[in-house]
């Protein structure tokens, strides 16, 4: 075996989450009343554009969630017996599929900082200048050439601009036919499915009159392709977003941070969801002593300041890791365990809000006729809660899950800054910002790490916010009434 698959805790949970989403989609497709609100989401242009952007982030995150350890090349002298595969030694560092795909930019470290697309380092150093005619070289202070950035250029001063422009142009030239291909395939699929004339469909598409906002989706896709392909081509020869203090490519760091952000944003709610749903419904339905105990429990937990509870939890974990080093053979497994722990602690601090909402809604629902009818028929309490109450509060759960996502992504950066976030060895937006912050005082300023973290985070969080808003508008009956009133008021005016 050339590689040893490693399933980290968070990987397992991510794939569990994927399976759950797939099951949910399958379930929704078969139920008309559940399909309707999702159909409303699909008709919102902002939400669908956001979904395209989110899909890119999710693909990056998933590629980064398949981990393994590569086999080391057999040391000279040992027998390379293919049949006895047990003796293969594996590398200590855990890699992911994304690492392999990005190997060309990940494995080209410079010595230290360099600006985006630079060919020379950011700071002056002593450089050897070969003497003329084989004489002894002289040493001068100058900006040294980078080892990899623009290494293919013979005269960087003269050629760099033209080369960058040409490569970028090539990327654009590649993006346009690719985009056209996707659009044509889309039109072909839509017209054949709905028996439409393709010309009429084109027309409807470009005037934005299709039910699913294909125009917005295609424009977003075009912008993404125009951005991604030139960057991909440029990154073969340059550090497109520069390098950080130890010379790592910032583009690579930003892409690796995506998984950390996605894990924190999704697993935190996933981990605590069963508790908040179960306790919330139980408190609302059973009332009495159960209600008092559960209320007391969540009020107590929520009155501890979140950051401090997280800090206390992480300190506890640090002690645990120190005292049980044998449980974590690789640093990746240690960092991953800390990430999972952070999700759990964040979940503990954030589940109480949802629990309170569910309790309130259940209190309302339990007085409705259909619940009373079920009680009169002698349906057991658990069955009423799971068959009659739970499906009718799911929209609240769904809204909470999508609304929490962006807040958690932002919280990660702050917590990592405080020092109670992810493991310092784990690449995340928080650790990137934290490292870059110390370079604020430099002259000229090292701005590219901060700027990259800013752009990536803004894209992710903004897309998540826009999508979450559409989901909330589609699922929350109260908001829907509000919108109808607004439309009405507008028609009056």
């Amino acid at each position, binding site marked *: 075996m050339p590689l040893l698959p490693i399933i980290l805790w968070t990987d397992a949970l991510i794939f569990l989450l994927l399976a759950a989403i797939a099951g949910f989609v399958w379930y929704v497709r078969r139920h008309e009343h559940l399909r309707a609100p999702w159909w409303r989401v699909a008709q919102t242009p902002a939400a669908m554009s956001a979904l395209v952007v989110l899909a890119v982030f999710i693909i990056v995150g998933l590629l980064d969630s398949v981990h393994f350890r590569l086999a080391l090349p057999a040391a000279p002298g040992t027998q390379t017996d293919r049949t006895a595969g047990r003796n293969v030694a594996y590398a200590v560092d855990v890699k992911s599929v994304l690492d392999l795909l990005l190997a060309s930019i990940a494995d080209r470290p410079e010595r230290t900082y360099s600006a985006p697309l630079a060919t020379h380092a950011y700071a002056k150093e002593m450089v050897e200048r070969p003497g003329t005619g084989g004489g002894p070289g002289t040493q001068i202070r100058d900006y040294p050439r980078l080892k990899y950035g623009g290494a293919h250029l013979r005269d960087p001063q003269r050629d760099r601009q033209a080369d960058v422009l040409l490569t970028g142009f090539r990327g654009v030239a590649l993006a346009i036919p690719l985009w056209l291909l996707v659009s044509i395939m889309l039109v072909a699929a839509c017209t054949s499915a709905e028996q439409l004339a393709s010309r009429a469909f084109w027309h409807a598409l470009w005037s934005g009159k299709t039910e699913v906002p294909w125009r917005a989706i295609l424009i977003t896709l075009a912008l993404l392709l125009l951005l991604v392909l030139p960057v991909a081509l440029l990154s073969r020869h340059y550090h497109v977003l520069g390098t950080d203090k130890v010379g790592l490519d910032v583009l690579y760091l930003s892409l690796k941070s995506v998984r950390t952000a996605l894990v924190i944003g999704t697993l935190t709610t996933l981990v605590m969801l069963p508790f908040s749903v179960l306790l919330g419904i139980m408190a609302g339905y059973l009332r009495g002593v159960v209600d008092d105990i559960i209320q007391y429990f969540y009020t107590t937990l929520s009155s501890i*300041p979140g950051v401090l509870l997280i800090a*206390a939890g992480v300190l506890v974990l640090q002690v645990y890791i120190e005292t049980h080093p044998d449980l974590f053979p690789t640093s990746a497994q240690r960092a991953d365990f800390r990430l999972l722990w952070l999700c759990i602690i964040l979940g503990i601090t954030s589940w109480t809000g949802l629990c309170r909402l569910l309790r309130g809604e259940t209190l309302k629902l339990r007085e409705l006729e259909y619940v009373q009818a079920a009680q009169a028929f002698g349906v057991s309490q658990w069955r009423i809660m799971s068959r009659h109450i739970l499906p009718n509060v799911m929209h609240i759960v769904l809204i909470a899950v999508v609304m929490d996502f962006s807040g958690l992504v932002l919280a990660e950066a*702050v917590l990592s800054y405080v020092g109670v976030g992810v493991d310092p060895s784990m690449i995340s937006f928080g650790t990137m910002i934290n490292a870059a912050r110390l370079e604020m005082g430099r002259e000229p300023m090292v701005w590219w790490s901060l700027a990259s973290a800013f752009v990536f985070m*803004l894209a992710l969080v903004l897309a998540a*916010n826009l999508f979450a808003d559409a989901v909330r508008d589609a699922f929350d009956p109260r908001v829907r009434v*509000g919108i109808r009133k*607004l439309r009405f008021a507008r028609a009056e005016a």
Partner: protein
Amino acid sequence: MSAYIVRRAIYAVFILIGVNLITFALFFKVNTPDDMARLQLGVKYVTPEAIAKWKAERGYDKPLLYDGTATGRHKFTDTIYFEKSVEMFRFNFGRADDGRDIAYEISTRMWPSLALAVPVFLVGMLLQITFALMMAFFRATYIDFWGVVLCVVMMSISGLFYIIGGQYLISKLWNLVPISGYAGGFDALKFLALPVAVGVIGGIGSGARWYRTIFLEEVGKDYVRTARAKGLSEVVVFFRHILRNALIPILTGAVVAIPLLFMGSLIAESFFGIPGLGSYTIEAIQSQDFAVVRSMVFIGSALYILGLLLTDISYTLVDPRVRFE
């Protein structure tokens, strides 16, 4: 009404006891003093004697809950729980790892925290309400639409970037105020101007959007239709009827945050070098000073519970229906 408040106050005390037990369990049971000593001393220098000395210095060398060797009252008072956790109710927090009295530190560091947090809270709320009011007044027009877009973009930016951007632009590029630091008296103004501005701007996005939904909820109510039917102008309806009624949920919702202003802001204080309680907490977390973290958890919870109590009281003041429940 007083019976209701007394009932809530008794409930608050019980919650505070619960918090106290949770923090005790977290800091002494899950994470024993031996573990803390090992972490603090560093793995290399751990010897049983060093751990015993570390524990004795901090008074952690006693039984957790019950001391069988002592007599009478001391069976319970001569324990870690009594000395470290119960004493907190008397605001006796013990000493930090650097030997300073935590209660004294808190009483001096409270003022810079308040000097930053109170203006941010007041100015921020005023701006958020104004902005939300504008969007709600021009609802379903382009002003509303782009206002909401601006809010969503602003709330999608991490608070860290507001601070970093503000420091870069105002302090470094334009040299208007110092990047960080603090001084007492009127000198504090020039150190506080930027943190307050950054704090206010950072909060506008989510705050204004939230208040806008409250205003819009109010717009759809029956009394508004009645007011319009009476022939009142839109401006009068909006500022005399809607604004007043919407302020009730807004103000009662804000009450819970008031006591927590004492805690200061973790991030802003440490970025701007303001010697408040927020930066005190961060320093304690980073140097793993368990005594300080424990005290701050207790104080923070106590203030939050106080906020809940104040919220209950404010509800009974503005909404008579609560009193009769």
